[in-house]
């Protein structure tokens, strides 16, 4: 967590305030507007965001005080701030939570500003749609992304085999894993992280099989049979030493730094297309992204383009217009777009996308092309998950997935328990 106002600035600001008040230059001060901005992410994202905040301040005179946290801590703090009537003006929002925050009036509808301070004329229609709740616009997409496997290219070069491509299947990973095991590089690096309790990976696998994680009514979109098969598939990958041991996988507690690729335990792991930029910033090896493994040659439809994150407006309604103005600057200004790159996903404005393409570095271009060329891998955008989805992910998928991985449950038992308990949680929260 980093607050941007350090003590010296605070003191200077305070002194200036007193000096200003005593000198009677109030009008200047009252014009200066301050907005609070909060987002999740790492240092790289923060640097880019603050650069744009400074540009906006120079242009409009509105100061942006930013604060950022890791994903888990972010929602904790945001919930507390909103409950305490102390919500920030600009809130980075996720597809998973936008319905909850919108229906509880914790964020404001932005329809009134569209066409005025909020310019969205050449915005992608599907990205605008993703930010709507009950027909009202509550979030402005900051970029499109898709799930993707993060691939350590250097590791594959060391083993001497081709890295996975868009047609690779789970069986292909099996073969690559054997090559990794016989090459035994870097103290036994595996080809694959253990994705058995990674929700997006389960989601993708279910969609390829013609199921869904959740239905539009907020129920489970699959049955025991699929869950048992899922756990069995991972059990066989684990037994053959294709994916990392559960002991290693459990070291991953969320931050980018504790993931299997960054720790050098696995050469590939489930991730998101926009995260390539952030991972490359903390990894010495050359990384790339590729689609999730297919369940069989020709199977597709598992991926979808989703708004990677939104900006929503909260806090004091009187400052909402200024906040909308900042968001408009953030998604439309060319210079801002260059500072932001594709770190939050592919920009949604066609003009911005075009102008940005030549200035992107290699990794940025990979991410841009990945999302643009999903082709047959692409399926429809699923409905927003039910509110209990977070709990099912953390308390159930993670726990039962680990129980199966460590051998405390059989895949059969785990699959049954997951479906029974997930249904119970869903019916309790409905």
């Amino acid at each position, binding site marked *: 967590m980093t607050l941007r106002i350090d003590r010296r600035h605070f003191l200077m600001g305070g002194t200036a305030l007193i000096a200003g008040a005593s000198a009677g230059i109030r009008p200047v001060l009252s014009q200066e507007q301050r907005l609070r901005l909060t987002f999740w992410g790492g240092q790289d994202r923060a640097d880019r965001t603050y650069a744009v905040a400074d540009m906006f301040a120079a242009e409009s005179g509105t100061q942006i005080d930013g604060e950022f946290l890791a994903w*888990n*801590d972010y*929602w*904790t703090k945001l*919930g*507390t701030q*909103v*409950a305490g009537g102390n919500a920030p003006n600009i809130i980075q929002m996720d597809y998973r939570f936008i319905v*909850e*925050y919108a229906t*509880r009036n*914790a964020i404001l509808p932005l329809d009134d500003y569209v066409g005025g301070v909020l310019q969205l004329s050449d915005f992608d229609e599907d990205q605008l749609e993703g930010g709507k709740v009950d027909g009202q616009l509550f979030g402005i997409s900051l970029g499109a992304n898709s799930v993707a496997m993060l691939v350590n290219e250097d590791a594959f070069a060391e083993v001497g085999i081709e890295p996975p491509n868009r047609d690779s299947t789970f069986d292909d990973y099996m073969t690559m894993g054997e090559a990794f095991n016989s090459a035994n590089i870097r*103290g036994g690096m595996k080809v694959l992280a253990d994705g058995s309790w990674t929700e997006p990976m389960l989601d993708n696998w279910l969609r390829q099989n013609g199921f869904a994680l959740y239905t539009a009514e907020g129920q489970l979109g699959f049955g025991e049979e699929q869950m048992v098969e899922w756990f069995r598939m991972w059990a066989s990958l684990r037994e053959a030493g294709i994916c990392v041991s*559960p*002991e*290693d*996988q*459990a*070291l991953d*507690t*969320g*931050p980018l730094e*504790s993931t299997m690729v960054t720790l050098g335990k696995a050469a590939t792991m489930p991730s998101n297309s926009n995260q390539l930029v952030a991972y490359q910033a903390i990894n010495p090896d050359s990384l790339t992204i590729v689609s999730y493994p297919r369940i069989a040659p020709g199977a597709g439809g598992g991926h979808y383009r989703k708004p990677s994150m939104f900006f929503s407006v909260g806090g004091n309604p009187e400052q909402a217009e200024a906040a909308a103005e900042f968001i408009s600057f953030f998604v439309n200004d060319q210079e801002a777009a260059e500072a932001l790159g594709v770190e939050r996903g592919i920009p949604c404005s066609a003009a911005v996308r075009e102008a940005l393409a030549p200035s992107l570095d290699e990794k940025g271009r990979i991410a841009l092309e990945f999302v643009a060329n999903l082709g047959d891998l692409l399926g429809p955008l699923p409905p927003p998950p039910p509110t209990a989805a*977070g*709990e099912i992910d*953390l*308390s159930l998928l*993670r*726990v039962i997935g*680990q*129980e199966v991985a*460590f051998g*405390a449950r059989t895949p059969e038992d785990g699959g049954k328990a997951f479906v029974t308990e997930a249904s119970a949680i869903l019916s309790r929260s409905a």
Partner: protein
Amino acid sequence: MTAHSMDAGAPAKGRAVTSPRIWERIWQQDGPGYLFLLPWLIGFFGLTIGPMITSLYLSFTDFDLLTSPDWVGIDNYTRMFTADQKFAAAMRVTFFFVIFSVPLKLAFALGVAMLLNRGLRGLPLYRAIFYLPSLLGTSVAIAILWRQLFAGDGLVNQFLANFGIDGPSWISNPRYSLWTIIILAIWQFGSPMIIFLAGLRQIPQDMYEAASLDGASKWRQFWKITLPLLTPVVFFNAIVQTIEAFKSFTPAFVISGGTGQPINSTLFYTLYLYQEAFGFFRMGYASALAWFLLAMIAAFTAFSFLTSKYWVHYDD
């Protein structure tokens, strides 16, 4: 302060007429005292008692942070005991932690205190060094350090490798993860050690001299003199450390990234409470959990006090 006001207030009972003057006197006598106490009083009522009462109320509601609370009666408490497997898991982890960490920590602290009690040179230095972990122990930095030490390729395993032992990844294996946190707790033996050290100094030397003359071994002296005379200190330390252990949060939170993983092996009661409150926004349920924790600690402490007369030896 209460002694004063009661002295002054007692005669007022019979003679209501004089009460204004009595109040004036109380004010003159105690007013400045209360004024000096004011910052603390504001904090106590505003930041401790107030939130506690609010949380008691919330424990009977379905408060979710974003919408206003609705009264649900004792639903939260019923769910806790009848329909919540995670609660049961959290209770198991917490009791395991309390039952193993407290006695081991106290034994270790007593052991070190006895070593230090032999009149070493540079005792203050050693005391400070051994006390240091207590100061650092609950910090986030130490929990992160612990993660590094006990990870698969951490220092502990590098050390074990010298003896040909291929250690597991201690923190991420459900069989050992809780033990790494217990070891972290034991390592923070400093504050009970200091108290033991003070207690040991109180034991009259002539008892040991007499016992040696009678031919009692060191071992026997420990069991017959040191330990019985030290029981009030043991009692005090046991209560303080038990309460601390029940409340333990930071190490599990940092080491498991707030998840209680692997499986639910480090899902401490407080961590579960935190998840319910800030992860799933079930403030009502979390408040109920918090009040049950308070009741549990109170019951434990009361039980210790009740049994203390059978084993705590007071000198008088």
